[in-house]
């Protein structure tokens, strides 16, 4: 019961969608009623299309995201901790950050072609920067008092990095990861929209091209739901990780 109350707002939105479509507030060719979308979703699930496309998508998303977290966090902390790294890397980070990653496709294709590689690279690039910036800002704002006291206790630079800077960078970095998590789903779809043989983006693109909007929104909602589930799981993990702050 508690869960029902908790997710009531979503239900309200769903009803609003259904009514908007049923009363033709918006053309049903562009926004089919939610009930049609759900019917299309069940069909997609029965066909097995959703599962087979989903698996190849998830592989790309997690490969890109995993790389992004690893490289992004390291980069952010190193940039905050070691000035030359900051001088050398921050212009590149700042330059690539506001670029739509799909605009980079002509460049990535030259190196990696149109296969899995270029998609993972796009997700990686798009997700890495929020993590880097989160880690950088977090590490930079680690309390000086802590750093000093650690230093006065004779901790060396590396130890201090691990014991003081990394933990204090954690909250902002984890928030950056949360952003990256959400972005990874969006980037996945947009990279697969462009060229693909399989995947959620492929389904959205090919169904949309044919005007089968009910099935297309079914896939969009599936991606949203998976993103939601990932976000919830992530929040539970973060709470555990940050328990020491209490």
């Amino acid at each position: 019961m508690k869960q029902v109350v908790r997710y009531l707002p979503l239900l309200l939105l769903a009803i609003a969608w259904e009514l908007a479509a049923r009363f033709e507030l918006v053309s049903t060719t562009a926004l089919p009623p939610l009930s049609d979308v759900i019917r299309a979703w069940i069909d997609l699930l029965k066909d097995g299309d959703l599962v087979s496309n989903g698996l190849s998508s998830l592989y790309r998303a997690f490969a890109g995201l995993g790389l992004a977290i690893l490289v992004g966090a390291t980069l952010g902390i190193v940039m905050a901790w070691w000035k030359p790294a900051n001088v050398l890397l921050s212009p590149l980070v700042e330059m690539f950050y506001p670029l739509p990653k799909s605009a980079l496709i002509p460049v990535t294709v030259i190196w990696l072609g149109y296969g899995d590689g270029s998609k993972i690279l796009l997700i990686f690039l798009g997700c890495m920067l929020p993590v880097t910036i989160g880690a950088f800002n977090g590490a930079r704002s680690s309390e000086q008092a802590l750093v000093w006291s650690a230093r006065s206790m004779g901790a060396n630079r590396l130890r201090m990095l691990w014991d003081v800077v990394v933990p204090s960078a954690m909250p902002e970095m984890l928030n950056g990861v949360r952003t990256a998590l959400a972005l990874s789903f969006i980037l996945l779809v947009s990279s697969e929209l462009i060229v693909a043989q399989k995947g959620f983006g492929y389904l959205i693109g090919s169904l949309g091209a044919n005007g089968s909007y009910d099935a297309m929104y079914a896939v969009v909602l599936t991606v949203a739901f998976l993103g939601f589930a990932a976000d919830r799981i992530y929040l539970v993990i973060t709470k555990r990780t940050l328990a020491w702050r209490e």
Partner: protein
Amino acid sequence: MARVTQIMPADAPGGLPEKAARLVYWLFGAFTRVFSIVLLLAAWEILARSGTFTHFQLPAFSEVVERIGSDAWSGDLWINTALTLYRALTAFAICAVFGVIIGMAMSRSAIANWFFDPIISVGFPMPKIAFLPVVILWLGVYDVSKITIIVIDAIFPVIAATVIAIQGVERELIWSARNMGANNRELLTQIVLPAASPQIMTGLQVALPLSLIVAVVAEMLMGGYGLGGAMMTASRFANSTGVFAGIVEIAVVGYCLVKVMALIRRRLLIWHQESNEPTTA
């Protein structure tokens, strides 16, 4: 680098040598700041000229610059940049104001939290650009629909950062403020918001480039003027010099936006320890 330039002149004696030293140091500082970019561009130029790739695959950087120059001369560049910036910044301003308000409301009121929390968790990772046809039908194909779709995309990081920031404000701080007799409003405006502002700023720093990205993507999908529209047109005509010119233009515009944002962050958070370098603490 800014810190070093400040220290340097103080050590040097006055007079002409000091000025020269300052100039050399400034030049050196400016150079290191763009060193990696220069390196990247040089690599691009050499690679393009080496003949490894066809002109279509990778046009030389110098040609791209030429193309940008001719766009600037004809005025197209300025119109497109102004339009894209107008859309992105208007949407960003809306995101900043409403994002922080919603975020604050969510951490202050259980009802607001109940209502927005699931919507944000579901909405954040949703590929919202898929709803573009619906937005077009509702709001038309002009600026309103583009700005709306940007707001829908870029507001989420602001809300998420605000909520987390306010949650992260240390309890001791709130307790001691309470003890000193602060009421709820004072607590919010004088304690919680300032203490949360670094993280809120981080959220805004994510939202600003995102606004630009979505603006460009929406323009690419809807055509017309704007940096994204121009890039899409170039790409349709297999004009790769135009496509790469678009990438460079968007990168430059984005770089400036991010820089300005970082400057604002430093100004606004001047009281916060992160803006103080260890030497001045």
